[in-house]
């Protein structure tokens, strides 16, 4: 066996089928998977993706361009199948998401069945919202796949990438809601007694949030203007 380090150039990828190390100019991309020349599946579409990397050795983490449009995906069908818990995501090839959707649906139904008083109504209201969310999510994902755009594994409706920016509203909201409902369920705190305050507190919270958002946007515009002037 010859030593691998004979070649001064580093391999850019490995063939999915045979495991052979591939130089950057030998890499064949087929639907986002790397193959060597021999194991390249006979593509129905002409080889148009993967433009030759001019200096592949300089960029070993070369990202292949997005897949070509897949015309076999129908957003309409995705919507119809999305009404069945999990099936819309499975139609889009996102099996983990389908499983999670089915799981959440099951938890919602079980909570609506066994909930106590006020929470039961809450979950009964949530079920149709959740089912239509799944349908629209599947529709959006299918549309993106049809256009050949990147599909987010988490959700195609809510962006998942805005980490690290601004105040963590969603996590803190989740924690607060979780703690309040937990205390209510353990009967250390009565939501029923707090009900009269819910409306005003909600309005104040939304108002403060909007105010902060406006102020932040204002500050940013001011900064940009300052940049342009200086």
């Amino acid at each position, binding site marked *: 066996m010859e030593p691998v380090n004979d070649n001064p150039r580093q391999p850019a990828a490995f063939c999915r089928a045979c495991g052979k190390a591939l130089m950057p100019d030998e890499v064949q991309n087929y639907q986002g998977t790397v193959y060597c020349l021999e194991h390249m599946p006979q593509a129905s579409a002409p080889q148009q993706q993967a433009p030759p990397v001019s200096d592949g050795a300089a960029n070993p*983490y070369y990202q292949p361009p997005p897949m070509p449009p897949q015309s076999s995906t129908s957003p309409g069908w995705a919507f119809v199948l999305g009404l069945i818990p999990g099936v819309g995501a499975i139609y889009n090839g996102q099996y983990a998401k389908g499983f*999670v959707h089915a799981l959440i649906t099951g938890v919602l139904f079980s909570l609506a069945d066994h909930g106590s008083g006020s929470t039961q109504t809450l979950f009964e209201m949530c079920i149709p919202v959740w089912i239509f969310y799944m349908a629209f999510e599947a529709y959006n994902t299918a549309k993106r796949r049809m256009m050949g755009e990147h599909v987010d594994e988490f959700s195609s409706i809510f962006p998942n990438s805005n980490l690290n920016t601004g105040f963590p509203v969603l996590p803190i909201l989740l924690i607060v*809601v979780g703690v309040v409902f937990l205390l209510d369920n353990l009967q250390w705190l009565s939501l029923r007694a707090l009900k009269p305050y819910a409306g005003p507190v909600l309005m104040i919270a939304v108002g403060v949030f909007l105010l902060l958002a406006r102020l932040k946007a204002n500050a940013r515009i001011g900064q940009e203007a300052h940049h342009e002037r200086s």
Partner: protein
Amino acid sequence: MNGVNVQPVSLMRAVRGPILLITIGTLFAIDHVGPYSFSTTWPALLIVIGVMKLMERATSSAS
């Protein structure tokens, strides 16, 4: 080798699913043997999700 998958953000994202499954499993176990039913303990899921999101942020801003 290359350190693509060792970044804390992707690590947090990778453990998200397993931790959720473990939490759900624990809650169902408590439902069966413990004093609390699942209809009582489900908000713990929300708390876990929120804490994981916060940790994701913390690790991504630290790096």
